[in-house]
């Protein structure tokens, strides 16, 4: 990242402008205004040539962002149009030790001695102009040890120099030199001051343009980095990607991310990027010894401090570490940024190293680096959270799979002895009934009943674990038929205590598994019958309605869900609010109720419904019956329903 030119200098280093007005040794003008010019008189006092030069400088400033071109055009124009023999522009060096020649006209470049490239402040006219912050004039009539003429010319010359100012402080000088007997006058001083202002404007304009271009480059880097970071949530690939992107875009020779565990006293380096052209390719060691000074450095970094070490100033880094980097990898400068993700004893560290030169990071660069560090820390935090959630999910999945297998295996294995029990109990009942007395027969009946119950329980357990597994393909079914079949199956139970069943006039057609749908209705209806209690007029109502409901899903889907909602309502004993969630859990049977059943039915129904994208819910109050609602999604090819549709239920009255 190129360093921006430092024109803002610290007050202490700046040459102190002498604010007392200096009296330059002006030669008194030998003619009154309007008289014909004498030979050797310069044309600066005539407005037109000055206007031309000004126009030229302004046009160049508008057309180009290359300061060199603007300066060259300016000095050449001044030499031609204003008849100054020699023109030069100097700028103050960044070290503030001298003035550097930046453009010259009137002297062939080969004839300028290199010593003239840098002028001291004390013995030159431009130096005097900068020192005093005023126009400086000097006549070199004879060689003097304390003054040197511009370009070290031997001939007698007059020199005039105007300071180029930025924010009222001198940053350079515009100097003209003429050979005697040509003379320079006060008007020339004004003219030079005016032109110096034009040059200052050009400097400001090019600096602004440059700063803007650099800012745009930094923003583009941050955007690209952000895009690269968002592409992945996985921790390890993210770190590899980050280290390569940052190293490459910031043109670092080496870049690595370390993981610092303060309590475990380890520093781990697993991700490193090397500039592909770098010949020194020895890899960074995987771990660093956690000595006392490394620990101290780590503690400082943990507070958020940035660490900078260069070959001139390596003290920020523990000396053993710097020696290692400098001797082994020829590192000449290094910067380390902590990436804090909020963990108490752990942080990441991004380190950029330069081998080809002792890189200096400007203020703007540091701002960029901080921005990068913040983005990285955020991305790493997200990746850590995702990683943790993934591991939890994986553990849960394994656990679930184990449980399901267990349930299935156990139920399966228990079937054989149960079948045997059942078989022999039945045989006993059939073949030895005559030889048993009443009590014996009663015992046998109890055995048979319980075996039957055990058998059914195992069947339902198997069913529960099977619901999540092999599924029959969906078919287009008329729900009416399914309901009819279910009612037929339950005919006995319905007849036992005359339950009135109320059905709608018409049923919809859906795409579902017929077996499963039958199970759902069978379970809900038999539950409704079971939990009628002492209701004198038991009624069970069934019905349905279409629904179009918007779902909040990720990613958001534009189309609302098309559903059919069915219900099974009874006017039995109802379910207390506290129990309404528990009933869907397997093996939860409400203790207060005396009713046969294994307690698995509702959990099977819930699993069937939910595994196909539906939902099951209950509305009930004790003594007021219970209503179970479940939804079946309509196939996508069904005609779309208007959104928010909440028509009345289709039910018979």
């Amino acid at each position, binding site marked *: 990242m190129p360093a921006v*030119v430092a024109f803002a200098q610290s007050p202490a280093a700046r040459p102190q402008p002498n604010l007392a007005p200096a009296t330059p040794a002006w030669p008194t003008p030998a003619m009154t205004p309007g008289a014909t010019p004498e030979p050797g008189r310069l044309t600066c006092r005539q407005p037109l040539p000055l206007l031309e030069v000004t126009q030229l400088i302004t046009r160049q400033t508008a057309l180009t962002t290359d300061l*060199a071109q603007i300066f060259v055009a300016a000095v050449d124009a001044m030499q031609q149009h204003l008849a100054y023999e020699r023109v030069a522009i100097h700028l103050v060096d*960044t070290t503030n030790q001298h003035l550097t020649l930046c453009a010259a006209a009137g002297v062939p470049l080969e004839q300028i001695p290199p010593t003239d490239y840098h002028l001291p402040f004390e013995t030159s006219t431009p130096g005097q102009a900068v020192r005093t912050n005023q126009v400086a004039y000097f006549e070199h009539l004879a060689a003097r040890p304390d003054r040197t003429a511009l370009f070290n010319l031997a001939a007698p010359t007059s020199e005039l120099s105007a300071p180029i100012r930025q924010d009222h402080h001198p940053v350079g000088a515009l100097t003209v030199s003429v050979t005697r007997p040509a003379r320079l006058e006060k008007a020339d001083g004004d003219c030079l001051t005016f032109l110096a202002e034009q040059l200052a404007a050009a400097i400001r304009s090019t600096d602004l343009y440059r700063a803007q271009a650099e800012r745009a480059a930094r923003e583009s880097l941050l955007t690209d980095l952000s895009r690269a970071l968002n592409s992945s949530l996985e921790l390890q690939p993210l770190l590899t990607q980050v280290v390569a992107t940052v190293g490459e875009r910031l043109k670092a020779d080496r870049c690595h991310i370390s993981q610092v565990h303060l309590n475990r006293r380890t520093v781990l380096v697993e991700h490193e990027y090397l500039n592909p052209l770098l010949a020194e390719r020895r890899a960074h060691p*995987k771990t660093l010894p956690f000595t006392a000074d490394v620990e101290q450095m780590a503690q400082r970094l943990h507070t958020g401090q940035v660490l900078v070490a260069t070959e001139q100033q390596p003290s920020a880094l523990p000396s053993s570490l710097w020696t290692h980097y400098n001797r082994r990898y020829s590192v000449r400068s290094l910067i380390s940024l902590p990436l804090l993700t909020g963990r108490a004893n752990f942080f990441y560290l991004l380190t950029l190293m330069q081998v080809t030169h002792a890189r200096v990071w400007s203020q703007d660069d540091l701002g960029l680096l901080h921005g990068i560090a913040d983005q990285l820390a955020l991305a790493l935090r997200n990746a850590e959270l995702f990683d943790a959630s993934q591991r939890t999910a994986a553990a849960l999945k394994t656990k679930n799979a184990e449980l399901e297998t267990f349930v299935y295996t156990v139920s399966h294995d228990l079937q054989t002895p149960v079948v045997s029990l059942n078989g022999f109990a039945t045989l006993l009942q059939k073949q030895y009934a005559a030889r048993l007395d009443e009590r014996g027969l009663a015992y046998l009946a109890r055995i048979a009943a319980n075996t039957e119950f055990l058998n059914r329980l195992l069947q339902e357990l198997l069913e529960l674990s099977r619901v999540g597994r092999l599924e029959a393909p969906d078919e287009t079914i008329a729900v009416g038929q399914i309901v009819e079949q279910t009612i037929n199956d339950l005919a006995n139970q319905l007849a036992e205590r005359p339950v009135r069943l109320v059905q709608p006039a018409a049923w919809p057609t859906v795409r579902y598994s017929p077996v499963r749908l039958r199970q759902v209705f069978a379970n809900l209806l038999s539950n409704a019958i079971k939990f009628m209690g002492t209701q004198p007029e038991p009624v069970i109502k069934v019905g349905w309605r279409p629904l179009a409901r918007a779902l909040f899903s990720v990613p958001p889907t534009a189309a609302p869900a098309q559903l059919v909602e069915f219900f099974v309502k009874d006017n039995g004993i109802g379910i207390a609010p506290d129990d309404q969630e528990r009933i869907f859990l397997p093996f939860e049977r409400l203790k207060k109720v005396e009713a046969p059943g294994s307690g698995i039915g509702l959990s099977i129904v819930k699993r069937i419904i939910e595994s196909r994208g539906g939902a099951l819910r209950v509305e009930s109050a004790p003594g007021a019956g219970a209503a179970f609602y479940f939804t079946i999604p309509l196939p996508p090819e069904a005609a779309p329903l208007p959104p928010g549709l909440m028509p009345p239920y289709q039910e018979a009255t």
Partner: protein
Amino acid sequence: MSQPADAQRPEPAPAPPDAAAQPLVLCVDDDPWTLKMVSMILAHLPVTCLTSRKPQEAVELACRLKPYLLILDLVMPQMNGWETLEKIRAACPDAAPRVLILTAKDNNLERLMAANIARVDMFLTKPFDATELLQAVARLIK
């Protein structure tokens, strides 16, 4: 963990048919790693690359071998880049190589000096982009 070195380095350029006909590029820098990098990059162009860590030696080489292009660093301990350039131009004016400045110093002053006074052909800053350097040199040797 380091990348496998072979996968990272660009393949070396095939042997030039006639080394004498290729333009000579003289690269002067006090840092050996920069010199290595530049020679690796220039291996992709039809040039012969010569490197030197000592400015004095570079002056002699320039006068003797008359390189087509000079790649010069500015910050060198014994003699800085401007002095080296000046010495080369003074010692053998007929050599007149094209000059590309490759330096970590990037400010208005150096650029202005480079463009207007020393009249160099190109000014690149470190850390440099390999593609940029390649394109710059390709343009200069055309």
